[in-house]
């Protein structure tokens, strides 16, 4: 069963995305740390991953690039700044087109309880203005915008 994803905006520079998985955290950690696994799930629906280079060690570089069906390319890269298997990954992220204005610091924490892993991704922007460009769902929910296309995507993505 899909679990509800939550997006929160604590403080004035952060976005926190939280989700639970029916899997032990060492497996979830593996899916974040091996490029051959990461490229199978991370990214926009229906986009293809044309680069997924991961040097998974502290100080190592990573770069992920995706291409939309109509040819638009979106790529970001950064450094791993801290790795604590299987509970924590810290990395910097800079988009090629710099829409985040100086990049973000992304901290993933994984906690496990009764075989269920909670993944908490905290994205910290350099300024409130940078986050304003990304500040997200509370506004959308307040305006009762329906994410109808998303339902279709999730239905397709479920294992049969």
């Amino acid at each position: 069963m899909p679990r509800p994803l939550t997006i929160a905006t604590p403080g004035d520079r952060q976005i926190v995305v939280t989700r639970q998985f029916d899997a032990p955290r060492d497996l979830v950690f593996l899916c974040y740390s091996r490029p051959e696994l990461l490229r199978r799930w991370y990214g926009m629906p229906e986009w293809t991953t044309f680069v997924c280079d991961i040097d998974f060690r502290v100080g190592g570089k990573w770069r992920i690039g995706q291409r939309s069906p109509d040819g638009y390319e979106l790529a970001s890269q950064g450094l791993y700044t801290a790795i604590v298997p299987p509970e924590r990954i810290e990395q910097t992220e800079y988009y090629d087109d710099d829409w985040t204005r100086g990049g973000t610091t992304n901290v993933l924490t994984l906690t496990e309880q009764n075989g269920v892993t909670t993944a908490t991704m905290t994205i910290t922007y350099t300024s409130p203005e940078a986050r304003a460009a990304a500040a997200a769902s509370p506004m959308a929910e307040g305006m009762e915008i329906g994410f109808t296309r998303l339902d279709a995507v999730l239905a397709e993505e479920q294992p049969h």
Partner: protein
Amino acid sequence: MTPSDQLDATFIALADPTRRAILARLMEGEASVNELAAPFDISQPAVSKHIKILERAGLVTRSASGTRRPVKIEAAPMKQAVDWLEKYRQFWEASYGRLDALLAELQTPVNTDKSRKKKDKPNA
């Protein structure tokens, strides 16, 4: 304004609950400043100030003629903001939906010989 500046202005304008309520009202149709101020427990000049911020962000316009000068919502910048948000959530929902499927596959005994030995059962 660049598209990114426009998005910033839109989100900053939308950060305030009174301005969101004003926009929600305007989605039903144009209204005068007095009509917009009526449901709120704040002064008419305060509502005017909120409308100016929405105007600067391009989210609303006021007609130049007539004494009523009704305020009207502008669809295009709103659509841009909503589209952006939808993509953001869609990105994570869809990514994590695929991660669910991948985790299920990695935990299925018939598939474990491909990439990874299955660990001891958690319910042991």
